[in-house]
């Protein structure tokens, strides 16, 4: 049942593309039904059979026998938790694109293709299949930004595509190297994870593969595609970009680079740790200076994804568990932040300039958006009770035995996180008497039902995960303790 959402998305995408001259709201409903059903199926499957260490094969068909490539979909606890995230983010994304009127058929067709590709990446148990889905996600992303985006959208779309392909090229080199040097004539992940690659291969293949993946996760200094891409993208696309696309890179590191090349991971642990921490602080510092509301969130994504990369680079059990939680947590929170700024604020006021927003007094005129943003902001700065806290705490705890200095610098990044969020809250919503007087502004249109539902879904998710992390940890923990990660645990745990 876990694989159904994947097929569903592609089927609906195809349908919407073929019958694109549909009535104005029909594509919205079809997409909502598809994504909602996808989420429902994933959750049902996960509840029926608590995923854990065991890798459950869903489909396994021969594909290109001479290369040993198979159409192999499988899932363990890690995939399951990210599939649930994809379901939540995709439903949220539709709800916040309810006002898309420009060629909705094509818009949602691309949207569903993107979601389908993401499901595919999280389910692939074959390297080639993984790579195909991974690449497939880039194309709709490019088109969504270039066609439906704003602010310098061509530049942003091109930059994003180029960076993605740069990362993909590195990933491809790594995958070919894995395939060639193993000599097993297989692309099956489990088989490759059992194989121990010679240290000389690991030493160069790991950094190439890890960096290639991590570009998509916003690895500093190759992060610059992310903020511009987020800003230019239409709301739903920025929600997905920050919510799930950046996670694809992190997932690649976690699923392929780390377990297959553990010794390489140990060798370059510190280098990537430093880059991750640099991203955390850098992203936060730059976010502190932005005038464009969306850029604040865009750079905050770089900062928060730095935590994911830090956890992955450290690769201790606690740090990895924290990294997965942070992937989920950031997926939800960033989605919510982009929803408020892109949909609730920008679509109504047509400005994202923090200096101008004060005059709209959104705290008074749009209290729902203000309260949602404040809550999402608290979640983002790691206030306990929301999911970000437990994720970042685990990463810091897991990093501590490796390097106290990295923890200290990363903790400084958390401090800055509070600063830029509060600044944005103040300037964006609650700037009182000191905001420059402007001619009378028409009150913004009232908040619509889909917006309320979308915000509710995402808020409940982040609070639920923050209060009851055990629910998801019960999937993540056994998976990380399972045989797939044997090699990594042996190398990383002294």
């Amino acid at each position, binding site marked *: 049942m876990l694989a159904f959402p994947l097929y569903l998305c592609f089927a609906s995408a195809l349908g919407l593309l073929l019958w694109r001259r549909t009535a104005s709201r029909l594509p919205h409903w079809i997409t909502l039904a598809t994504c909602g059903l996808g989420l429902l199926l994933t959750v049902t499957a996960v509840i029926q059979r608590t995923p854990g260490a065991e890798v459950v094969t869903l489909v396994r068909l021969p594909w290109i026998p001479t290369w040993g490539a198979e159409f192999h979909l499988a899932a363990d606890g890690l995939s399951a938790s990210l599939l649930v995230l994809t379901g939540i983010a995709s439903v949220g994304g539709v709800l916040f694109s309810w006002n898309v009127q420009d060629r909705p058929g094509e818009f949602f067709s691309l949207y569903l293709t993107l979601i389908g590709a993401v499901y595919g990446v999280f389910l692939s148990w074959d390297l080639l299949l993984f790579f195909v889905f991974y690449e497939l996600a880039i194309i709709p992303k490019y088109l969504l930004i270039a066609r439906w985006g704003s602010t310098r959208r061509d530049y942003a779309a091109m930059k994003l595509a180029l960076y993605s392909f740069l990362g993909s090229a590195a990933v491809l080199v790594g995958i070919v190297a894995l395939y060639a040097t193993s000599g097993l004539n297989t692309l099956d992940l489990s088989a490759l994870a059992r194989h121990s690659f010679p240290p000389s291969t690991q030493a160069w293949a790991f950094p190439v593969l890890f960096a290639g993946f991590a570009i998509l996760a916003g690895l500093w200094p190759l992060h610059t595609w992310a903020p511009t891409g987020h800003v230019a993208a239409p709301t739903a696309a920025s929600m997905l970009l920050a919510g799930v696309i950046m996670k694809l890179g992190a997932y690649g590191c976690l699923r392929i680079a780390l377990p297959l090349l553990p010794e390489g991971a140990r060798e370059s642990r510190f280098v990537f740790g430093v880059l991750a921490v640099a991203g955390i602080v850098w992203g936060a510092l730059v976010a502190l200076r932005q005038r464009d509301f969306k850029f604040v969130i865009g750079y905050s994504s770089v900062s928060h994804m730095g935590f994911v990369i830090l956890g992955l680079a450290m690769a201790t059990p606690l740090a990895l568990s924290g990294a997965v939680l942070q992937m989920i947590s950031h997926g939800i929170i960033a989605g919510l932040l982009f929803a408020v700024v892109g949909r609730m604020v920008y679509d109504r006021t047509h400005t994202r300039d923090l200096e101008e927003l004060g005059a709209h007094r959104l705290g008074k005129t749009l209290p729902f958006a203000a309260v949602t943003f404040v809550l999402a902001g608290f979640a983002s700065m790691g206030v306990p009770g929301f999911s970000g806290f437990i994720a970042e705490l685990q990463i810091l705890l897991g990093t501590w035995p490796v390097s106290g200095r990295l923890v200290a610098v990363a903790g400084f990044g958390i401090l800055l996180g509070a600063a830029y969020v509060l600044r944005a809250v103040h300037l964006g919503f*609650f700037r009182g008497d000191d905001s420059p007087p402007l001619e009378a502004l028409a009150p913004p249109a009232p908040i619509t039902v889909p917006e309320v539902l979308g915000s509710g879904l995402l808020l409940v998710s982040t609070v639920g995960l923050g209060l009851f992390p055990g629910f998801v940890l019960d999937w993540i923990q056994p998976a990380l303790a399972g045989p797939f990660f044997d090699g990594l645990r042996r190398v990383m745990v002294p």
Partner: protein
Amino acid sequence: MEPTHLPATNFQDLAWAILLLPLVSALAITLGLRRNRELTTTLSLSAVGIGFGLSVWLFFLYGVSGERLAATPLSWMSVGSLSAHLGLTVDPLSTLMLMVVTGVSFLVHVYSTGYMEDDPEYPRYFASLGFFTFSMLGIVLSDNFVQTFIFWELVGVSSYLLVGFWYEKPAAADAAKKAFLTNRIGDFGFLLGILIVWAATGTVSFDAMAAKLKAEPGILGAAASLAGVLIFLGAVGKSAQLPLHVWLPDAMEGPTPVSALIHAATMVAAGVYMLCRVYFLLDLPAAWPAALSFLGSISALDVIAWTGALTSLVAGVIAIQQDDIKRILAYSTLSQLGYMVMAVGCGGPDAAMFHLTTHACFKALLFLGAGAVIYACHHEQNIWKMGGLAKRMPVTFWTFLLATAALCGLPVLSSGFYSKDAIFAAALASNRPVLFGIGVLVVGLTTLYMSRLVIIAFLGESRSEAASHAADPGRNMTLPLLILAVPSVSLGWLPVGAYFKSAIFPGAVTHSAEGFSDVFFEPFNHSPLGAFLGFGLMAFGLSVAFATYWGAAMDPMPGHLPRLSRALRNRLYFDEIYAATLIPLHDAVAALADWVDRWIVQGLFVRGISGGMDLFGRALRLVQTGNLQTYAFLFVAGVALVVLLALK
């Protein structure tokens, strides 16, 4: 009733109820009752009121008997070597603190029904207040570091919401931000401290940690003092000690009842409470990692004691030249918190807790009294525009006077006398005569600034139109004043100090007062030096205040001592120094990062690559001439080049 015979689970539910009731009421108000004032009032008052009742019950069950409730913790998350749970500590230390928090919180709730009556955001106010009470109780009941840290942060959040309650005032919005961020700096250190201790002991639970330390005293190794100081940094933020004290005076922008509850009685005391809770971690011999070995034999407790003493002195001096009634009280709070921290550093956490308890009562009373004055004078906070209020607001005046006496430590007739004396005794007992001297000196300062406040604001003639029409507020505001006056006067007659001593050091021999004279005159018998010196300085402060301010139309100090006065009015330039150093530094770094990101990383890197590609493409286009001769020439040239390279 014999508590140990009763099943623990029942009482565990009591503790859970105390913790969760305010949260439930806050949530109910936020989600559903925003428009219903009566229901809001009933709900939040009863939540905290029942909480207080249950706290009293728990106090008699566990506090008085010295029992500990063996509560089953709720497992929250367990990841590898980290096992975090939600646990409750119900022991003598926490039960008394529970009474203080719920008691003051309840009275502040009652008072607020009058003070906030006309505010359109009345329900939001009570929801935030309930949320704060919940967070604070979470710290009090916590039995492990992770839980403490969680509620620590939540307290910061609720303080942010309440300080910035009137967010339309830029000063309030800025103060809220400043309070939150300054606290976060402290929390950052706190977290690092927790990490060190967790890594060394493998647990976050206080009990397990204490047991491990007992079994193996050197378990923290060279990081012992560093861990202690980092944990203390959490208290420096929350309890507003130097150099992070700057947020507290600004936090006075919040509604006055909030100042009474959060920024006088409870939240700022959380730091002190936490230090007492983990005192076993602080009381370790000095040991520093190699990089900090120059600190030598300075122990964590030394750092704590000196920080507290300096805070108490600096804040006491600044308070002398403040004109805003709330700011005077805010600096006085800083100064008293400094006392408590100093007491912890001097090995007297019991004295610190004693003073925390009495201070919670009389300082809450002072703030609520100030609130009544501000309310009566139409939101005037400058004491030079008050005057003559004693006649017009008798209830407020007399209760305020009793609280002032307690703050100054008037012998016998005030609780502050006993708790302060315990602190002086601790300073002497730990052989720190300089700190003792500072402590006693601050008594003189305290009396000076408080007498100045009372003389100018309450005595003499009215100094403004508003003050001449002032009157005592309604009963829901005067009743809390009267109730708080009782413990402010009498708490010292009870053996609270001895109670805390046996709570923190189980099995320690406590001095128990017997007979009339020892109960009331204990400090004079027990530690006469502090008591007599304090009394003398108090008399001195009082006479200076009367000589200077009795009948004065304006403050004579700027005229006589202009430089000093200006420095004090500018709060010794702490904010200016921060504004002149840290903020530009931070701005510059952020601007640099932004610039680099914009021009180097994006510009040079990205444009460079795309520009390079572009040039490459142009170059290739030049070659595509379509001229057969050119191609032939290039082909031959290429072959020649290859041959040349191959031969070489």
